[in-house]
């Protein structure tokens, strides 16, 4: 019952460590440094004080958090289903779920038009019967972010579910718990590390989403212009503003990674589950 001890990790060869450090500094650290170097810090007050910037930040947070929530609510059943031993059509379902990971986001945005747009498969009926038009609304931004980000949650959680040996679940069943209860009371607590990790990845992806959003939701300050869109457009005109917004984006992302990711990584390194 005591926490399993991990075998001591073999010492990493110095050369390998050097490559690792050099790679991360050159590939990730240096561009970040470049961004900070070029940022006109004297403009920071003006740009952040601008209502459009604050709208973009607010929209980014609202849309990405909503997209994450939707991804959890819809992604959990999907991950559960995909983690089943086998059922007809599972590979097809997984392929569809994985597609947004591979698809260029712009293509995703176009595909969303063909489904939910005014002329889309479903959208035309929404328009005709309920007078609902999704494109160019905040809902479109959320839908686009969910489309692109949800696979991260589903695949992370599905992987965790697959790694379960089912023994604790069997014990719960003998105690009288039906499948839904077993899942919510035994399985989910046991994989909570992966749930956090999946949600964090999803949030991070949604926060940085650009292509599908600008295609399907368009770009309108205060309604669908999230930070990445604001940055992109600022680069077309006012570059200093773009740089300040980029730094803001980096700060928000770092907060996501450190606050959520750090906790998750700490949790994941200790064994989670039922001995």
């Amino acid at each position, binding site marked *: *019952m005591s926490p399993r001890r991990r075998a001591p990790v073999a010492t990493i060869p110095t050369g390998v460590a050097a490559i690792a450090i050099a790679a991360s500094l050159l590939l990730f650290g240096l561009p970040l440094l470049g961004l900070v170097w070029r940022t006109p810090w004297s403009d920071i007050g003006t740009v952040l004080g601008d209502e459009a910037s604050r709208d973009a930040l607010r929209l980014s947070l609202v849309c990405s958090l909503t997209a994450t929530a939707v991804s959890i609510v819809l992604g959990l059943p999907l991950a559960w289903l995909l983690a089943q031993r086998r059922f007809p059509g599972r590979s097809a379902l997984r392929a569809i779920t994985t597609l947004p990971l591979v698809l260029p986001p712009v293509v995703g945005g176009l595909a969303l038009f063909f489904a939910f747009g005014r002329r889309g498969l479903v959208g035309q009926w929404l328009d005709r019967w309920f007078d609902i038009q999704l494109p160019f609304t905040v809902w479109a931004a959320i839908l686009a972010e969910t489309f692109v980000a949800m696979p991260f949650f589903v695949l992370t959680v599905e992987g965790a579910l697959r790694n379960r040996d089912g023994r604790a679940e069997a014990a719960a*069943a003998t*105690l*009288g718990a*039906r499948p839904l209860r077993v899942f919510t009371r035994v399985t989910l607590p046991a994989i909570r590390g992966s749930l956090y990790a999946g949600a964090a990845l999803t949030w991070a992806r949604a926060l940085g989403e650009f292509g599908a959003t600008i295609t399907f939701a368009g770009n309108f300050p205060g309604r669908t212009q999230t930070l990445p869109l604001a940055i992109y457009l600022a680069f077309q005109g006012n570059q200093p503003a773009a740089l300040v917004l980029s730094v803001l984006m980096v700060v928000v992302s770092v907060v996501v990674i450190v606050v959520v990711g750090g906790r998750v990584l700490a949790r994941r390194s200790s064994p989670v589950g*039922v*001995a």
Partner: protein
Amino acid sequence: MNQFAGLDADVQARRGLVLDVQLRVAAGERVALVGPNGAGKSTFVDSLAGLLPLDTGHVTLDGVVLDDRSRFTPSAQRAVGVLFQDLRLFNHLDARDNVAFGLRARGVRKAHARAIADDWLDRFSLANRARQPVTLLSGGEAQRVALARALAIEPRLLVLDEPTAALDVQTKATTRRWLREHLAGLAIPQLLVTHDPIEAATFADRIAVLVDGRVVQEGTADELRRVPRDRYVADLLGGNLLAGRKIGGSVTLERGASLLVASECADGPVVVSVAPQGLSLHRDRPATSARNAWSTVVRSIADDGHRVRVALGLPIELVAEVTPAARYELALAPGTTIWVSCKATEIAVHPA
């Protein structure tokens, strides 16, 4: 359909090996299913618990069919308490909520379920552990929590799956004694599944020996020891087991006789085991170096042509195994008076 009070199982399943087991356990009865690893014990447990549907056969509990060709009651609706070998406690819950889990699943309100759980923990001397995360419990404590969890749902059948396999020798003995104590008077069928013949013999009223998916023999420990119907049964359960108390270099047995032993085992209640091949039979008082020697009367003889099992009478009821040649040399027959000797080193002592 079948009004037998207790478990009536005819389990046929194909899971790598073909399992074909017929077994009845009456309410209040303790039966041990003993067999080597890979004999099909886990599959049998899964079938009873509703974790694995039968291919053919049936599982009936108190006259209610749980599984046959036409219906299958899922695990959650069976009321079969299982003490798993690996316990399978829920690590994210404390001891109390582990015990309360089954009650909560059955719709008992949280406060009430916890009160019942506390009662169980109290009964198992774990009251001060109720709020402990189960990961911080000792092996023995964790096992008591797991048993309390299985019993809290008031099962109609209790299955103990290798309950001491994961424990160290000293805890094994304490746990066996503790299990016997706390399960005495439990009016439901109790099935012990184990690979350990000593555990089977000390726990159960009746033993069924499972080899390669089939029960090869069934009976009391004494019956199996005296007339093993199979080489495996002879090897596994043919050993002589005697309860007694160890004081220094000797063990005083229940009927007052005593044996000299060579064991580092602590003084106190013990079980000694003597292999039938470890006993030597002689016509006259032996002049050997064996420390233990006494005379007795042959009660019965079982001879399958390859080996002869000789049941010996008082003062120590044991079974000895000799070759057919030795049988004629010694002119063994029921009622014959002979001498028995046994080296102290042939006697294994287990804490009980």
